[in-house]
């Protein structure tokens, strides 16, 4: 009886000690993300038909109801550290990009919510103004040649995740397998991520490459 009461008293102390320990351990890891202080960029391209299929009726109508369906769109240009990445660098620059800035990105990022979110989460850490950041995003996207197979795919198909990488590698001289990652979600191709230096040259990136799709075969839904 006494022993049990003793245990009950101890437990909150133990929990508090654990919390303190956790805080101490994580404090040095939580570095302050300073905008502009990062190592390289990841350009993330999203396969729009997969997004539209997985979100169904909740998908952004601008992206998923257009008469001419989108294929690869820009998800974002993400500043990266060699390990990890900065995000939500608040207090630097405006909270939202200007209406005109968002409007001018809609042809390659067809969702206003997406453009605003990318600015808040990633663009704010780039150390650039919203206009410059989105200009750079457009430049990075223009640098990538989308393989012909994805530009005129008409019907859905199953594909090796490696084949997607190969297709991008062949279409883009200088791009290597260790400089990109194919990611999948619910068995579908969701994104292709490509690592670029701050001057938008291809570069290898182990931490991004490792987080790629673990499945061998993935489904590539057709633009409807």
């Amino acid at each position, binding site marked *: 009886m006494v022993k049990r009461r003793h245990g009950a008293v101890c437990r909150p102390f133990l929990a508090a000690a654990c919390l303190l320990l956790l805080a101490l351990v994580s404090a040095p890891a939580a570095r302050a993300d300073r905008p502009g202080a990062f190592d390289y960029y990841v350009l993330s391209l999203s396969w729009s038909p997969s997004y539209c299929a997985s979100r169904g009726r909740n998908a952004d*109508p*601008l992206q998923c*109801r*257009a*008469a*001419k369906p989108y294929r690869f769109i820009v998800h974002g240009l993400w500043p990266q550290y060699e390990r990890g990445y900065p995000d939500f660098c608040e207090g630097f620059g405006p909270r939202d990009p200007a209406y*005109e800035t968002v*409007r*001018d990105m*809609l*042809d390659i990022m*067809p969702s206003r919510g997406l453009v605003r979110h990318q600015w808040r989460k990633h663009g704010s850490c780039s150390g650039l103004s919203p206009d410059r950041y989105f200009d750079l995003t457009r430049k990075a996207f223009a640098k990538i040649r989308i393989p012909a197979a994805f530009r005129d795919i008409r019907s859905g198909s199953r594909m090796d995740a490696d084949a997607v990488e190969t297709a991008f590698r062949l279409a883009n001289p200088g791009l290597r397998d260790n400089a990109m990652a194919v990611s999948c979600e619910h068995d579908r191709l969701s994104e292709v991520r490509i690592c670029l230096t701050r001057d938008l040259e291809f570069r290898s990136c182990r931490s991004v490459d490792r987080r790629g799709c673990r499945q061998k075969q993935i489904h590539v839904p057709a633009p409807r």
Partner: protein
Amino acid sequence: MSASVRRSRRLLVALACGLILATGLVAQPVKASDDRPYFSWNGEPRVPACDTPAVRRAVAGQIARADPDYLGGLTIEDMSRVVETAYTQGRPSPYARRFCEARAQMSDGRARHVYYAIMEHSGFVGVSWNLRACVDGLDPWRVYDARCRTVRP
């Protein structure tokens, strides 16, 4: 049976056939008219997509035809970054409308934003589609309300 009787019977049959055909044709679109005008036979797509050549020509043509007093004689030389922002039908009008935007390279060397709405049955006597285009910042008379409101979704 005499020839005249036979002829009149044939005429009657032809008339009946014609009547049935005519009512069938008229009744057909009425049946399928949940979100379309009762007279409309338009198939999908009911209005062309935003970046079809015909639409691009129509946008440039409409701006080029504007009175020089209104736009200062500016014309659109090229259109890029075409985006469809909305498609509506039966909200509340049964006419289908497609709303589009693009970046327009204009004859004074500047790029501006152009909004346009493609509307079903708004051509000559309502036969074909037509569109209204408004260049952002170039509507001094507010023909399309402030910031081209009436041609935006």
